[in-house]
């Protein structure tokens, strides 16, 4: 018997070929999405891990003003830390920048894509993305800094996985930035005769023991460093300028110290001569007293210093002598003089003591000031200019990090498609059991067991699901699918060619899950359907659900017929809507991606109102006439585990280049729309930014929203910002201008033109295009397939009724009205619900997908897109209906004579 039943499988397949083909296609598409997204992601994720091991990716890197000494390097190495110089300099020509560096030996080693490593001076390996963008191949010659080098190979390094020039760059621009790897001697030749400032002293490190990155950072900070060793004139200018105030203070204090010492010494001198003055005055008084005694001897009195006044008064009273009165007056004057000299010398003594105290105090003040100055100055200027752990370095593992999100999305998409698949096959099974009810009943009556029938009905959908899973996985794993997904990685990141991996879990997911789902769903549905008695099956008794009992008398015949039809085929209507929901969700995610890329491009281009942005390493005291000075700081803010850079622009009251009006206040921010969207901020919210280099958090209050969407930016009043970050009143480090400014290159970190910004804003769009195309097209195909399948099943199920009304003389348009047009309302209402609903859900999901991207989340469509999507849905519906009308036509009136419901 089983053999007989098995023969039916092929017949059933032939008879329902379109249905099974569409089901097969659905599984293939679902598994194709999963496999291509997950497999390509796994290629990158596992490939990155493997290549990072082979090429010995750094644990971090740091840059210093002056190269570390051998002793300092040995000190670091003694802590089980591997360290390698990755010194480099940038060569710019015609807007293109080539970073020249030595071939790395132990850390961040080159993965050669084509050719070989340089073996002699005059040879270079060019970073592969730059080579591709600029049509450079092995054997070509390239001019770098006046030297003609032969390209001996192309390749990539793990520390430039995302080959951006500056850490703060958000998008790769390989056409304008690349790296050239040369031999150590060639590199030395390049830099010989050049000043220290010509190169970046960067070291890569790998931690092999217990020593942590923070330990290393602190150790480098603590290392001896004399900023005078830095032979960069602009640095020294900057330093002397920055240190001017400190020197002025110290000089002033020194002058005070010197002055007080001088005062003390002078007073000491005066003090030394005080006794001479008092002795002289005393001598004069005594001499005059002697002369007076000679003159008054006739009166029998002897005058002394203490009694001359009383004795002379007595004598004057007795004699009334005017001479004695004159004598007394002169002696009184001399006595006063004597007393004055005494007061003076006492004052000198006191002044001396005070000046001595003053001198001691000034010395103490100088010592303390020096101490504070040293401490403060040491904190600001150590040798370290940059310290970056690999985990915080956007250049490292960028492709892999991006793919983790894709992988999760792929796995989720598979589950969603499987749910849809589950519903679709359940509809098929129910239809098949119902249409074969009398046969099944008869077989039951003849003694066939339920188990045999379940096995029989399970077989074909299970085989289809299995084959669909295998085909989907095969296509998904194929070089076509993987390459199309990988192409966006290879065309953006500078990564080695990853070999294809075939994760066991993915194979199980794609090949085992569909048939297992088919078995489970079919088993449950078939088991339930076959639980009826043989007689009930023979009679094909249908239970009328309670929902069918609704009173439709108030409706016209056509409308009530359509409603009855819909109620009867509620499962199909639900599956159509579910299919629409799922495909619409995939579609909306694709649309969000497209919209975001377009918005990033358009808004960035519109909000970039300057033509030149000069990011200053050492700003000049005088701002160039045409420039607008801005103070820029880059802090970070975590978003779902990713640390994203947020630029703070300190701008003046009426900025020409930014539509932002930040209020005065050290804690007040005007946040850009992009930041507002990314972090869901409102006015009044607290927004904490982190300065990870200095382990500091800054808490701000959102004061206003600025109409600016290029990158993640916030705005502060420039004076408040200077105050907050302890800068001078006229400090700035960025200049925006309409025209090119004459600024010495040595003072600059970088120059960014509007053209650069415009170009980089388009990068996302081109990078994401393959994924967008896949999501949009697959969603349309899924929607098409599901709706086609369901409406076809509905027509098959209604073939008796259709045949019957044809017998009665219904015309095709009337048949269509009765049986199909009702679904137009289902589709239309479903679309009206699904479009906003899926958009809302996609909007909730999408920020998680791009959580590692430093840009706003403006995924708002223009309003006209919604009616367009609706029209698109209806167009697909009408295309399907047009296809199915043929099926309607094929249903003959005689069918009613063969079958009965």
């Amino acid at each position: 018997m089983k053999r007989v039943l098995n023969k039916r499988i092929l017949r059933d397949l032939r008879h329902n070929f379109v249905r099974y083909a569409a089901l097969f296609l659905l599984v293939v598409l679902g598994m194709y999405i999963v496999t291509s997204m997950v497999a390509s992601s796994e290629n990158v994720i596992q490939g990155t891990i493997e290549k990072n091991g082979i090429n010995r990716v750094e644990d971090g890197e740091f840059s210093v003003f002056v190269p570390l000494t051998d002793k300092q390097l040995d000190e670091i190495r003694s802590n089980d830390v591997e360290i390698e110089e990755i010194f480099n300099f940038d060569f710019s020509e015609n807007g293109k920048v080539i970073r020249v560096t030595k071939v790395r030996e132990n850390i961040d080693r080159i993965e050669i894509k084509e050719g070989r490593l340089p073996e002699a001076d005059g040879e270079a390996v060019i970073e592969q993305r730059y080579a591709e963008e600029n049509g450079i191949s092995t054997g070509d010659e390239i001019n770098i800094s006046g030297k003609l080098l032969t390209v001996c190979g192309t390749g990539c390094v793990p520390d430039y996985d995302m080959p951006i020039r500056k850490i703060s760059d958000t998008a790769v621009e390989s056409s304008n930035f690349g790296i050239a790897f040369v031999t150590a001697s060639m590199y030395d030749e390049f830099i010989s005769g050049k000043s220290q400032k010509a190169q970046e002293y960067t070291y890569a490190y790998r931690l092999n023991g217990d020593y942590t990155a923070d330990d290393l950072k602190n150790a480098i900070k603590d290392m001896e460093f004399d900023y005078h060793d830095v032979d960069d004139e602009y640095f020294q200018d900057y330093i002397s300028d920055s240190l001017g105030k400190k020197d002025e203070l110290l000089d002033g204090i020194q002058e005070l110290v010197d002055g007080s010492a001088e005062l003390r010494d002078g007073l000491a001198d005066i003090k030394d001569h005080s006794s001479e003055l008092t002795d002289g005055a005393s001598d004069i008084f005594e001499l005059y007293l002697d002369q007076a005694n000679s003159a008054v001897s006739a009166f029998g009195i002897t005058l002394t210093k203490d009694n001359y006044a009383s004795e002379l008064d007595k004598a004057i009273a007795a004699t009334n002598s005017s001479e004695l009165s004159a004598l007394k007056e002169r002696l009184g004057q001399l006595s006063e003089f004597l007393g004055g000299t005494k007061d003076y010398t006492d004052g000198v003594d006191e002044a001396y003591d005070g000046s001595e105290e003053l001198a001691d105090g000034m010395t103490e003040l100088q010592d303390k000031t020096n101490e504070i100055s040293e401490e403060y100055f040491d904190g600001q200027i150590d040798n370290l200019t940059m310290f970056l752990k690999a985990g915080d370095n956007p250049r490292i593992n960028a492709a892999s990090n991006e793919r983790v999100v894709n992988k999760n999305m792929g796995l989720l998409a598979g589950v969603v498609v499987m749910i849809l698949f589950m519903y679709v096959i359940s509809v098929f099974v129910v239809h098949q059991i119902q249409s074969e009810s009398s046969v099944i009943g008869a077989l039951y009556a003849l003694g066939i067991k339920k188990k045999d029938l379940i096995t029989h009905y399970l077989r074909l959908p299970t085989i289809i699901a299995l084959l669909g899973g295998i085909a989907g996985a095969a296509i998904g794993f194929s070089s076509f699918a993987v390459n199309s997904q990988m192409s966006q990685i290879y065309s953006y990141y500078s990564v080695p060619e990853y070999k294809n991996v075939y994760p066991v879990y993915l194979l199980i997911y794609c090949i085992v899950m569909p048939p297992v789902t088919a078995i489970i769903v079919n088993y449950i549905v078939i088991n339930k359907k076959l639980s009826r008695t043989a007689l009930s099956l023979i009679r094909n008794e249908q239970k009328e659900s309670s929902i069918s009992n609704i009173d439709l008398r108030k409706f016209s015949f056509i409308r009530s017929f359509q409603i009855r039809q819909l109620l009867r085929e509620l499962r199909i209507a639900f599956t159509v809507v579910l299919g629409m929901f799922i495909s619409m969700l995939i579609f909306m995610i694709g649309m969000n991606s497209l919209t975001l890329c377009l918005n990033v491009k358009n808004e960035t281009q519109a909000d970039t109102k300057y033509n030149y942005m000069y990011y200053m390493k050492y700003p000049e005291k005088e701002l160039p006439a045409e420039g607008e000075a801005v103070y820029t700081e880059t802090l970070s803010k975590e978003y779902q585990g990713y640390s994203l850079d947020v630029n703070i622009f300190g701008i003046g009251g009426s900025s020409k280049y930014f539509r932002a009006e930040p209020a005065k206040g050290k804690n007040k921010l005007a946040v850009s729309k992009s930041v507002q969207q990314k972090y869901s901020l409102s006015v009044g919210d607290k927004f904490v930014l982190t300065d990870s280099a200095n382990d500091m958090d800054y808490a701000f209050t959102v004061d206003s929203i600025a109409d600016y969407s290029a990158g993640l930016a916030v705005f502060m009043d420039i004076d408040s910002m200077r105050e907050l970050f302890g800068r001078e009143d006229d400090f700035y480090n960025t200049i925006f201008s309409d025209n090119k400014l004459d600024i010495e290159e040595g003072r600059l970190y970088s120059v960014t033109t509007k053209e650069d910004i415009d170009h980089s804003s388009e990068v996302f769009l081109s990078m994401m295009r393959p994924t967008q195309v896949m999501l949009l097209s697959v969603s349309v195909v899924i929607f098409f397939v599901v709706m086609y399948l369901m409406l076809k099943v509905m027509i098959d199920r209604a073939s008796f009724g259709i045949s019957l009304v044809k017998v009665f003389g219904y015309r095709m348009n009337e048949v269509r009205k009765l049986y199909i047009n009702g679904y137009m309302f289902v589709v239309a209402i479903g679309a009206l619900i699904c479009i906003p609903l899926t958009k809302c859900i996609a909007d909730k999901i999408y920020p998680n997908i791009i959580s590692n991207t430093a840009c706003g989340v403006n995924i708002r469509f223009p309003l006209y897109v919604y009616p367009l999507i609706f029209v698109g849905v209806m167009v697909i519906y009408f295309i399907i209906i047009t296809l199915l009308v043929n099926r309607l036509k094929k249903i003959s009136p005689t069918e009613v004579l063969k079958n009965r419901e």
Partner: protein
Amino acid sequence: MYLEVKGLKKKYGNSSNTVQVLKGIELSVQKGQMCVIQGTSGSGKSTLLNCIGGLETIDEGSVKVSGKEIFGLSPSALSDYRRDNLGFIFQFYNLVPNLTVRENIKVCEYLTSSPLDIDELIKTLGLTEHQNKFPSQLSGGQQQRCAIARALIKNPKLLLCDEPTGALDSATSRDILILLEEINAKYGTTMLIVTHNNSIKDMVHKVVFVKDGLVVKQYENKTRVPAAELEDL
């Protein structure tokens, strides 16, 4: 003649395996007549009815209804022909299961601009109590009444009945036949009834015997036995 069939031939199958079901049927029925077509299983009686109903294509011959030839009509013209002229009653009722009795009747009411009064018809057929029930909630007789009401609502000129009592017990069969008789009397509907029930032939105006695709005998009853008095139903 209201219905005139001449030399009607119909075969099934392909070139290698052909079954000639109708081999040249000759038949005529006057307007308002009830005609029974009798024959054994496989004789071609149902095929004859389907050909007259425009449900089967005709290979050869002529079928005229009210003087209009239906042989050679396009499917849509055949559809219009059925819509304007015919009513069908089937052995297994063929009601639309998810429509109520009333809605099933409305399926055919929709097709005409001058239908009979649906309430009156429902009442006539004794379906007033059941008009909002679904077919699965009805007995066989009630379902057949519903099917008759559905066929009659558009007041067809020709009613084609394929074994209308074939699935019913004798009492119910009698009720249905009485009903058909009343309708014929009331509306003057021409009826073609395919049956293998030998008793029905006595109640109709004309009897046609079909055997192996040919009309082997036909006659008109001089006296008709009312359906209520038929025996051995």
